[in-house]
């Protein structure tokens, strides 16, 4: 089976400014592929290139086995698209918007539309100008999903949706994938993507920093560790932790006797990598409390982002943080 999307050496220049510097990635059919990056990284530009809304300056694109530049209308009938900035006409209703797009990209099963609208709790007969941002976004999702496309290209799909509706959206994505569709979605927040995506590309300043699975990101990410134990000297607890690969920032102290069992030691550390070696070491201790936090993928990704532009930001943030401190002291 051919890949759903293949992008090779994709470059895009607007005038003199190059915003995509040669992207390479491929999306396997029947998977969810997430692109994460801060605003301005090139996510929207990449998606618009896939839909032939803008044209690459260099490189090749294949979408569902076809070149979007040449394939024409039949290809776009097989794609559902949610733009990053969704604009809707004012003097119309959701139903009429959907009917229009159905007339272009149909056929559309009306029961499917009604079903999706029910699940998203969207009133299709309201005037679009009276819809909240979240409700407009639901309408945008509906027009992307309604003709059951083979490929969904969704730019910041969860933006403006409250958590409950996000769950509905994730269910819709899963159902689409179960039905054989491929989903290509973007976000500037990893936590929104990690739930849905099989693979994640991290985009920064028009370059792909890494393509990885959410699982691999999770392994690479740093977790916070904190535990209390009794019966072991603080010094020995520290030594034990130091033996575990991936453990860093170890801090150990003996807790004061009041409120705790005598000789309670509290330890904090960070862990990156696998947890099994840590658990094996901790099993030697007499633990009274243990917290191993959910890995902060956000942190992991932010580290990747900040790789390039740290020097330019540093003086600015330094100056900003110093001033109030000084004022406070005076």
């Amino acid at each position, binding site marked *: 089976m051919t890949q759903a999307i293949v992008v090779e050496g994709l470059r895009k220049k*607007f005038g003199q400014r190059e915003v995509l510097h040669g992207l390479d990635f491929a999306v396997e059919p029947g998977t969810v592929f997430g692109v994460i990056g801060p605003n301005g990284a090139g996510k929207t530009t990449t998606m*618009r290139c896939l*839909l*032939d*809304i*803008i*044209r690459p300056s260099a490189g090749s694109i294949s979408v569902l086995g076809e070149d979007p530049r040449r394939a*024409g*209308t*039949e290809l*776009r*009938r097989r*794609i559902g*698209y949610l*733009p990053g*900035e*969704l*604009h*809707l*006409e004012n*003097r*119309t209703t959701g139903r009429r918007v959907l009917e*229009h*797009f159905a*007339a*272009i*990209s*149909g*056929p559309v099963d009306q029961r499917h539309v009604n079903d999706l609208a029910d699940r998203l709790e969207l009133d299709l007969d309201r005037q679009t100008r009276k819809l909240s941002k979240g409700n407009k976004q639901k309408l945008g999702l509906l*027009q992307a999903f309604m003709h059951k496309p083979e490929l969904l290209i969704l730019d910041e799909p969860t933006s403006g949706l409250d958590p409950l509706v996000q769950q509905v959206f994730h269910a819709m994505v899963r159902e689409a994938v179960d039905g054989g569709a491929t989903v290509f979605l973007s976000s500037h927040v990893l936590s929104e993507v990690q739930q849905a995506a099989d693979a994640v590309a991290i985009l920064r300043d028009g370059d792909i920093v890494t393509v990885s699975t959410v699982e691999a990101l999770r392994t690479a990410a740093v977790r916070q560790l904190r535990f209390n134990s009794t019966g072991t000297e603080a010094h020995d607890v520290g030594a034990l932790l130091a033996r575990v690969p991936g453990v860093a920032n170890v801090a150990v102290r003996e807790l004061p006797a009041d409120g705790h069992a005598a000789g309670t030691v509290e330890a904090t550390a960070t862990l990156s990598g696998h947890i099994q070696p840590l658990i094996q070491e901790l099993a030697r201790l007499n633990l009274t409390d243990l917290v191993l936090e959910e890995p902060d993928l956000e942190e992991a990704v932010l580290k990747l982002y900040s790789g390039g532009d740290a020097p330019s930001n540093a003086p600015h943030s330094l100056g900003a943080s110093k001033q109030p401190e000084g004022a406070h002291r005076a």
Partner: protein
Amino acid sequence: MPRPLPLFTKALTDSWRSTLAWALGLTAAIMLYLPLYPSIGGSSQMQQMIDALPPGMTKALNYDQIATGPGYTQATLFGLIGFLLMSMAAVGWGAAAVGGDEESGLLELTLAHSVTRVQVVLERALAILVRTAILAALVFVLVLVLNGPAQLGIDVGHLFGAVLLFAALALLSGTAALFAGALTGRKVYGVAVGAAVAVLGYVFNAVGRQSTNVEWLLNLSPYHWAYGNSPVANGADWGAVTGLLCISAALIALGALALQRRDVGV
């Protein structure tokens, strides 16, 4: 099920309010101007007043011919107020069709669906053509209705030709606006270019008629191509009808080509 010409039907139905508003404006203008002909244009007093005006001014306003019913209709309705209203309508529609749609961010999503860009331009141009035709037909009927009561004495065939030129002239401004909008993606450029075609055409005609030294300006004036021989009085110049429609068709084709070749929404 896919319907035929979805963009055309949408453009037409979405703009019924504006079409109705322009129709009301044209109706009001016709109802105000034409019934006054017996007391203004046809009266000898008025003729004396016009004779007293500087000849340059009467020529610029086409008032040199308002002593006859067809001349009066030509000068006041087709040459001035009707021309103004119809051009504004067509320019507004033309500028909104692609440039305005792109600027408001709507075009991106439309193009992501199963349409071609050429289809977008052509269907929307067709919607402008139909709306212009509706307004022109209304003008034709209203003038015909008033022809007897207002003692205008207009030949029906000549009126038909004049209305055709009236529509073709407005369509030219509208398609110029469409083209500029499709080329730039900005509504304001569409309005500017469309309005320039209408206004410069009018000004070149007004100035060109002043003396033989500046007569060459008339050749650059679509307004003069259409109205130079007073079609309400003398019948249409069919070459002008064809010429105007051909330029409009060319502008539509160029608009489609321009949109086809560029990035949208950047």
